[in-house]
């Protein structure tokens, strides 16, 4: 079976699985499906920026948090659809605003900068809420988990489609070329600054909407949780474990970690975090191409 046919089969099976889950599964399974869809949406969006350009973002939680904040602040004052679109738009606007200066920073500096930026926004929102005398906000009348699940699956599909689309577009080739050598890409006519900014903004939209949807799931909002850096860390781990070469990578990484966390997180959170740390070290050092790279090698070897 060639790689394209395999991909088509894989994505169809996944979609059927996601569609069948709420029909056959109970609330527990739907909850797991929701988590998988959420991480898939986040990691695919992240990969559009970080896997393709090599600018590793350790701060995608900032978009998630901003989206949550938008939905929570406008709760029951605007129609839900508008609020969710607003969440995506707010994230995109923030990315556009900070994108140019931020994307000038390279390598490890970029990684640590994105982390710092997310923390800065988190503590700013926290201080702002404290000044306004709000410690946490509650959401009344949030929709049923199955509605939330449906929205999240739609976001996961959108993010995956975006990654697959960017992969084949000239834009995507431009991003890959600037990852290999920015100066060379610039010389052969890739509009490096514009492409980087565009990738940054594109990768921010879906995470904003994901944050908005998750605010309805948790039915309350606290800046510390909405802007939790663990979200960024999880995204990176899933992407690193899965591999960044194609849209398959994030899927494999997400499935791997969702299953692992289902098994361990509730029982021994610290042990789970220790394993995450170990996995990060091992994959960065020994398997930089991730599970997807290993799968691709295996398919090639069988042919």
């Amino acid at each position, binding site marked *: 079976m060639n790689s394209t046919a395999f991909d088509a089969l894989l994505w169809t099976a996944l979609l059927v699985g996601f569609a069948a889950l709420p029909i056959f599964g109970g609330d527990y399974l739907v909850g797991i499906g929701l988590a998988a869809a959420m991480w898939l949406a986040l990691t695919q969006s992240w990969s559009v920026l970080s896997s393709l350009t090599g600018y590793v973002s350790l701060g995608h939680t900032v978009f998630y948090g901003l989206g949550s904040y938008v939905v929570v602040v406008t709760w029951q004052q605007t129609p839900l659809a508008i609020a969710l679109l607003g969440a995506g738009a707010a994230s995109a606007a923030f990315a556009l605003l900070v994108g140019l200066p931020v994307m000038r920073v390279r390598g490890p500096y970029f*990684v*640590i900068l994105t982390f710092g930026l997310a*923390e*800065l926004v988190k503590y700013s929102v926290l201080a702002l809420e404290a000044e306004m005398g709000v410690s946490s906000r509650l959401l009344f009348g949030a929709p049923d988990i199955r509605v939330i699940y449906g929205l999240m699956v739609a976001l996961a599909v959108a993010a995956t489609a975006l990654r697959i689309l960017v992969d084949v577009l000239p834009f995507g080739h431009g991003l890959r070329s600037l990852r290999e050598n920015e100066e060379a890409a610039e010389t052969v006519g890739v509009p490096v600054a514009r492409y980087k900014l565009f990738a940054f903004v594109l990768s921010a939209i879906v995470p904003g909407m994901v944050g908005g949807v998750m605010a309805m799931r948790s039915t309350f909002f606290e800046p510390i949780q909405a802007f939790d850096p663990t979200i960024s860390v999880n995204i990176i781990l899933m992407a690193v474990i899965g591999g960044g070469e194609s849209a398959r990578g994030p899927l494999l990484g997400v499935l791997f970690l969702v299953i692992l966390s289902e098994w361990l997180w509730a029982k021994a959170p610290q042990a789970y975090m220790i394993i995450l740390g170990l996995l990060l070290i091992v994959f960065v050092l020994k398997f930089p191409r991730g599970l997807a790279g290993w799968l691709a090698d295996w398919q090639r070897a069988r042919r």
Partner: protein
Amino acid sequence: MWLDTLLSGQLLFSALVTGSLYAIVAVGLNLVYGTMRLLNVAHGDLVMGGAYLAYWSLTLLGVPPLLSLWMIGLGGALIGLALYRSMFRRLLIASADPGRVEANSLLLFFGISILVQNTIAWFATPTPRAYLYLDDVYKLGDTAMTGNRIASLVTAAATCAGIWLYLRHHVVGLALRAVIDSPLAARIVGVNVEQVHRTSFVLGFASASVAGVLVSMMEQFSPFVGFPFSIAAFIVCILGGLGNIGAGFVAALFLGVIETYGIALTSLNWRSVLLYGVFVATLLAFPQGLFGRRVRS
């Protein structure tokens, strides 16, 4: 009214204490990053580890922090040596392309940081801890100073001065500065680069664990206090200039002043906003770090 607050010796003293603490934390990060281009985000976790060791030395063995800090500093040095021997020497030699080490090292250290924090949290529980030590108050004019803060200020200043003198006058210290300036040129003129790397690890780890002892004397700590120290140290290194140890001390005091006076003018809610604000602004102003790419080839 607020002018009086700003001019009081109290604030100046607390800015000095905070600044000297940042200086002793940052000097280690600066050495390791300056000589090897390894951005050790787990550096702050060494501080946290030192804090726990001091706590246990006092509560379990009854050894006061000002005595245990010698042992803890030595322990930090040994850990640095062991890590260098077991992992990093091979990593640094094996990598033909330093750019690749640099890009991956951050994720690697981040993994180590997660690992260390949660291992400590597992064994020692995540509950914050603190102990009382030298908490009698000395008065100098209007300024009230607790003994532990004075001890921290003096220890941090002495450690920094020691490292500075070592870099100025000892032959390995001089070699270390040569490697920071230009690794390639240093190697060509016959500097033992391996010895320099080893020394940076030893000095960096020792000073960070000593800093941890100082932290534990003054404030409460949990397994997760390390990261803000890494961030603060990173700000100091960029502001002062990579590998520029002397300017780093000035930058550390500057950060201490900004933090202390910033909080006095606003409120404690804004502490982290200030810290991360300075951090983001610094990186945006110096996108490659002060000396970043120039040294790559």
